[in-house]
């Protein structure tokens, strides 16, 4: 036990002190933050204000099209096409719409001329506003219709989907989906990153020929466990730093960029018509987010993170111990280890949609896939996503599964780590795992 601790300590400190650790741990959240900040910045300030001159000889629009700061329509009905053209050339306006006197309301083509190509977003905005104004005018031209009637007819209907049971609670499946998918995906990534880290650590020991030196003072099992625990600790620390850094930076965002509220910014990206819906969408998202049981989710996340990591990293270690100098060998030996991870990811994508389906239940109980799949089900909450019995069973199975893989992996590891110059097959590894002593 004491020796496992010494080994784990070395694994931990030697990795944490590496420059790459500092870089990836500090720079990655910074990078995400900068990316996020830039995205918001550009979506708010990126588009120049566009001013469109409208020469409406036919008086189609009644001298008004919805305008705001970013997109203004100015009616200059007295200008000729030639004079408006020069004004656009002189950059007084970004573009113009010329409606000849002969045009009727029934027209289906109008032309916007701009000195330079307008952005896709702006073009869409112009199109939407012009056509919605035109639609309004057409409706108004019908006999006995008032503006008020049109407004009331155009009101949006809010549609809510609620489960049959579960009192007045609003439906939160979209949020659960997002949270479930995100945490399942995180565990998927963790298994790969830290699993391969363990594998490479073992390969390093084998290739640099230090394995036999160490094994003469430490049992192979202690060496393997020390490495797994040390790297697991690196992973935990890295994750905690990421979480703290990202949340601090996110909190700092409004301070660093005054006047930019990320929530507001998100609404402004799409066209104005959608902003309304978007706003309520964000608000609903936020309230649903606060309804998710985060203490439960986070503690389960840590449990499944550790359980899944311990389960798979010992298998990765076994593969690493069987590989010789040629890292290419690792590829084929790795396949049986990575396949279940990829499969559980696929099951997770189904489970996040339908957390109580048979496949999801199986996937969340089976220890090779439960770390990823269970997170997706947990996001839907207890008991609507997963029952408490299933959760406890799944945890128990994961612990048993972890003990089993470690036991098997330790036997493969013990033989593999001292074997040089021989290409190992799965058949041989199987033999090492299940022979006596």
């Amino acid at each position, binding site marked *: 036990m004491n020796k496992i601790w010494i080994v784990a300590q070395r694994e931990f400190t030697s990795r944490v002190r590496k420059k790459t650790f500092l870089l990836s741990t500090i720079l990655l959240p910074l990078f995400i933050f900068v990316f996020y900040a830039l995205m918001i910045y550009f979506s708010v300030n990126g588009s120049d204000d566009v001013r469109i001159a409208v020469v409406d000889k036919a008086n189609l629009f009644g001298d008004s099209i919805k305008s705001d700061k970013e997109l203004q329509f100015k009616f200059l009905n007295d200008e000729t096409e030639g004079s408006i053209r020069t004004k656009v050339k002189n950059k007084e306006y970004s573009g113009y719409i010329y409606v000849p006197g002969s045009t009727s309301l029934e027209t289906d083509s109008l032309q916007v001329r701009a000195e330079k190509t307008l952005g896709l977003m702006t073009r869409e905005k112009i199109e939407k506003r012009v056509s919605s104004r035109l639609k309004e005018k057409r409706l108004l031209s019908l006999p006995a219709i008032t503006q008020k009637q049109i407004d009331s007819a155009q009101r949006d209907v809010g549609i809510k989907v609620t489960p049959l049971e579960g009192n007045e609670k609003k439906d939160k499946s979209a949020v659960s989906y997002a949270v479930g998918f995100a945490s399942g995906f995180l565990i998927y990534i963790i298994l790969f990153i830290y699993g391969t880290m363990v594998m490479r650590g073992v390969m390093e020991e084998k290739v640099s020929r230090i394995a036999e030196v160490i094994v003469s003072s430490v049992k192979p099992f202690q060496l393997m466990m020390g490495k797994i625990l040390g790297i697991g600790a690196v992973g935990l620390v890295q994750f905690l730093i990421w979480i703290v850094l990202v949340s601090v930076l996110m909190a700092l965002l409004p301070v660093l960029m005054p006047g930019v509220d990320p929530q507001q910014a998100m609404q402004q990206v799409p066209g104005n018509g959608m902003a309304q819906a978007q706003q309520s969408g964000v608000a609903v998202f936020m309230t649903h987010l606060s309804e998710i049981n985060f203490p439960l989710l986070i503690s389960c996340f840590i449990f499944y993170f550790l359980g899944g990591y311990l389960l798979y990293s010992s298998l990765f270690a076994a593969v690493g111990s069987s590989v010789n100098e040629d890292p290419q060998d690792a590829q084929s030996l790795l396949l049986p280890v990575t396949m279940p991870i990829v499969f559980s990811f696929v099951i997770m994508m189904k489970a996040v949609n339908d957390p109580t389906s048979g496949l999801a239940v199986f996937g969340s109980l089976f220890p090779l896939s439960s770390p990823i799949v269970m997170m997706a089900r947990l996001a839907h909450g207890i008991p609507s996503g997963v029952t408490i019995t299933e959760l406890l069973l799944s945890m128990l199975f994961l612990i048993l599964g972890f003990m089993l893989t470690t036991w098997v992996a330790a036997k493969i590891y013990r033989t593999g780590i001292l074997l*040089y110059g021989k290409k190992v097959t799965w058949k041989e590894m199987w033999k090492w795992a299940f022979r006596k002593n």
Partner: protein
Amino acid sequence: MNILEVRRLKKYYATQKAVDDLSFSLASGSIFGLLGPNGAGKTTLIRMITGIFFPDEGEIIFDGRPFNPVSDILQIGYMPEERGLYKKMKIGEQAVYLAQLKGLSKSEATRKVKEWFVRFEMQSWWNKKVEDLSKGMSQKLQFVTTVLHEPKLIILDEPFSGLDPVNANLIKDEIYRLAQNGATIIFSTHRMEQVEEICDHIILVNKGTKILDGTVKAVRQQFKEHLFRISLEEIPAGIESPAFDILRQEDHSLVVRIRETHKPNDVLQYFLSRQQNVTGFQEILPSLNEIFIRLVEGTPLSRKFEKITA
């Protein structure tokens, strides 16, 4: 007092008898040579003594008690033939780490490493990395990490490979010093001249079994062929004697084999009675190298893979 006794040790692999019914004992404070051709089972034997492998049969008595891999391993220092160090780790820290794994506390390990670094003039290496060292330098470091925890039994597998004569002598002197201080040293190598020079006692292993066991002197005596070199001022023609045969003639000396029932004195008498001036007379004992080749030759050098039913 024997530090190590190996009794009827067996280790069979699926296709080979790596170690087959091997016994020997090792006196405390001696330097012991474990010899054998490639694939003789030396590494397997050593791995059982260091607790890396469990024997299939037989027992190992360490320091008077049955060998307990967990606790006795702290009394053993092993430098394997396939050796290496963490390339990216600082040398000082690495030595301390390896000593800690041998059960030393961190402060004690640090103190000892510093002591040894002074002795080997390696103080300036502390913050360097292993990848900055030459092969000989890392060999020295490896030796230090092997003996740092003052083990009772030190096992060195080809300790001089890659060392220049100066550094090899440094290590050799250290080996003598450690043996004088009571440590027992097992020395596994193919380099017979080193064995002759250093070892008190050797065993020769081939195909998993012991084929020779004894002190270097006794072994050479055992395999002597009654060869003598006699040097003369002038070599006469037509030498013939019932006491010896001439094997070959070098300038001013003859190599002769004395026939059975005759004595070296008979050779001298033959030349003295003929008024020859004898300038030298010396017995030629076979070198370990010759003995080794004689014993191992004729047996198929590389092992055959065969099904073992144990």
